């Protein structure tokens, strides 16, 4: 046992079995591969994640030597952190490319002691950093793109990123801390830093200070959320939902005290992590300062750091992605604006001419009433025409809206988009062919999002064929149902050189673009939209040098579970 306050020490003795079961549970279901090794490199215990990663059963691994299993060697590898731990009894960490696990891993080892304080082995945590590296690079791209697009938004995002970085660096520092004393001070430092970074006063990290925590809990009892049942808590780390509070201390029926700590992003309520700790009554006594927390706290912190890290990154990426979706729509609308200006200026010009002609005709003696009537008819028609353009456009300009999945007539929707692009198609002298199956039922989707998909595919097709000779500029739009798979299929085929054969998958990745002014987000967003609706999107180079994009969407069913016809 390590040097800790009396109260805590007695607590641990009293609830040692409960603690053991608690940590075994965490160990087994933890998402990162974990292994316990003895002093002779033999595997004592592995969790599900590790067995799965190796594709072997956990039982088959027990007793084997780690270097044989993981590295295919007959002796410990160079820089083996476990070997160093055996020498000095301290925690170590190292990055390795581990072929058997298929990736780059940050391996950290933590010494495990028996109750007499003798070193008996180590806990290995393998953190797959290849995933984080990919995330990191995607994040970097996303950040660059967003910042380049809009400085104002970038400032906001920067703050978010900074918060994320602070959380991540805190988590990293905790994960790499060399001594137990370091962990607590790191956490305290980190919390102070996060709080000082501005606007983060809601970030609270309570550690084992029962007096303060209980005061907090008493003071805010009214707003306290319904605590998860002890049985519901299968992992020591879970993610807080929007309304959850930050630091909660509560009495359990069996007299133990439960304590919840949380780190949350103030900008995104769903982003955060929490730790639950339970104490027996004897531990309820205030602990002023914990200079040397028990060994378990380290594991506890590592698990915490891991979850926090993963969550903060994913949340940030998610918010940046939706940011980009909006920016892409804005950018695309920029392209559309020129066309729309033309669409609007035509009826306005006609209206103005007719109105001024009518004024002149009225001034004649006698006024030419027949001609004035015709002019007024034209004015009415053109005002309607302008109104229609505005109506069709308004939907696309909406920035913030939630998706509404409903039954959509795909043919009508495509026609609406085509009418927006009508002028562009005529001017570019593109031969446009429609092949709409008259028996096409309704599909399920969000109208505005689907419009965005069609606009994306159509502007891509227009851009692709524009460089071709006049007689080779062809676009074919097809809509037909596939009753066997219960999907509706929209295909846009063009005669342009849209993408290089072999890049069928690559073109749907973010930031892949063949256009000088493109952001490379269009197709990535289409894919996201379509897949969220339960559909699929794909591209194909056809034999005749044509490109075809196919979007399939689930058919809407009526009350008899038959395809719903318009």
């Amino acid at each position, binding site marked *: 046992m390590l040097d800790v306050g009396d109260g805590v020490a007695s607590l641990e003795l009293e609830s040692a079995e409960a603690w053991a079961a608690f940590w075994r549970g965490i160990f087994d279901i933890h998402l990162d591969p974990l292994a316990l090794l003895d002093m002779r490199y033999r595997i004592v215990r592995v969790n599900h994640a590790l067995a799965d990663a190796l594709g072997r059963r956990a039982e088959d691994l027990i007793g084997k030597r780690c270097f044989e299993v993981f590295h295919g060697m007959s002796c410990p590898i160079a820089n083996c952190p476990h070997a160093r731990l055996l020498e000095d009894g301290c925690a170590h960490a190292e990055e390795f490319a581990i072929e058997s696990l298929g990736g780059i891993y940050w391996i950290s080892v933590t010494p495990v002691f028996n109750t007499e304080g003798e070193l008996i082995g180590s806990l290995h945590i393998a953190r797959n950093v290849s995933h984080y590296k990919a995330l990191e690079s995607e994040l970097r791209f996303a950040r660059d793109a967003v910042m380049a697009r809009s400085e104002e938004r970038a400032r906001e995002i920067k703050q978010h990123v900074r918060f994320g970085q602070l959380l991540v660096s805190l988590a990293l520092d905790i994960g790499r801390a060399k001594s137990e004393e370091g962990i607590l001070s790191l956490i305290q430092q980190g919390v102070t830093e996060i709080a000082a970074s501005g606007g983060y006063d809601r970030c609270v990290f309570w550690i084992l200070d029962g007096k303060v925590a209980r005061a907090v809990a008493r003071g805010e009892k009214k707003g306290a959320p319904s605590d998860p049942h002890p049985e519901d808590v299968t992992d020591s780390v879970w993610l807080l939902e929007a309304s959850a509070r930050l630091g909660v201390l509560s009495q359990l029926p069996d007299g133990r005290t439960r304590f919840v700590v949380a780190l949350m992003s103030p900008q995104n309520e769903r982003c955060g992590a929490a730790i639950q700790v339970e104490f027996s009554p004897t531990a309820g006594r205030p602990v002023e300062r914990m200079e040397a927390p028990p060994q378990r706290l380290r594991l506890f912190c590592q698990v915490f750091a891991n979850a926090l890290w993963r969550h903060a990154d994913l949340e940030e990426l998610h918010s940046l992605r939706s940011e980009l979706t909006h920016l892409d729509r804005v950018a695309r609308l920029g392209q559309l604006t*020129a066309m729309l*200006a*033309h*669409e609007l*200026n*035509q*009826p*306005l*010009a*006609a*209206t*103005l*001419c*007719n109105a*001024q*002609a*009518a004024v*002149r*005709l009225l001034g004649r003696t006698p006024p*030419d009433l027949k*001609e004035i009537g*015709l*002019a007024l008819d*034209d004015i009415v*028609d*053109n005002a309607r*025409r302008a109104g229609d353009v505005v109506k069709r456009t308004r939907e696309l300009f909406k920035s913030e809206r939630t998706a509404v999945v409903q039954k959509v007539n795909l043919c009508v929707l495509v026609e609406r988009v085509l009418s927006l692009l009508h*002028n562009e198609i*005529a*001017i570019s*002298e593109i031969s446009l062919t429609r092949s709409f199956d008259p028996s096409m039922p309704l599909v399920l989707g969000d109208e505005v999002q689907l419009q965005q998909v069609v606009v994306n595919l159509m502007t891509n097709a227009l851009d692709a064929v524009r460089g071709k000779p006049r007689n080779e500029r062809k676009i074919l739009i097809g809509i037909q149902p596939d009753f066997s798979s219960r999907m509706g299929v929209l295909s846009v085929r063009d005669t342009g050189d849209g993408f290089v054969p072999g890049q069928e998958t690559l073109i749907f990745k973010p930031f892949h673009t063949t256009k000088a002014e493109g952001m490379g987000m269009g197709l990535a967003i289409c894919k996201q939209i379509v897949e969220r609706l339960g559909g699929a999107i794909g591209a194909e180079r056809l034999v005749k040098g044509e490109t075809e994009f196919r979007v399939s969407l689930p058919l809407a069913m009526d009350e008899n579970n038959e395809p719903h016809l318009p």
Partner: protein
Amino acid sequence: MNDGILSGHIVYVVDDDDDVRRGIERLLRASGYACRSFSNAVAFLDAGIRPSGPVCLVLDIRMPSMSGVELQTRLTELGLFIPIIFVTGHGDIPTCVKTLKAGAVSFLSKPFDEQALLSAVDEALNLSKNEFEKQARLVDVKRRYDLLTSRERDVFAGVVRGLLNKQIGDELGIAEKTVKVHRARVMEKMAVESVASLVRLSQILSENESCAMREC
């Protein structure tokens, strides 16, 4: 017909948008102009228009198969002088500069005010009229010049250079008296009464010649 409007004029309108074309035409007619409209540039060319009086063209830029700018170039190639007023739904500066450099009278963005259109049309028709008058004068002067004998043309050249009869006689190797006779015939045939007027006619002729040279 209004007083200020030139007689015998025609304003051509070429725009692929039916509504806009009808609107412009109605406004022009209501303002007293004679109009003829076409739905595309090719139809306008196919009509084989050879203007015989003041004309101008109200022309849309963006049209299928042949743009307004392409039609402007084509008219120049055909040697047809028809002043052009461009109207466009969304004008960009490079196109505007290009058309104006190529001689367009005006470049209007839709929607435009009637005053902008009508004053541009007036300006264009006047340009066209002046060009027609210039052409008519040139044809007349050339016809008269063609009546001169080669000796009379020599004397014409001498007079215009400001030489005295005697000097012209010395240059041509004929008597001063004979020069005087030729000179009187030249004045009579060219229908002028002063040397100054004769000099002006020679300028018209030489301008036309240098134009012809340039065209070669």
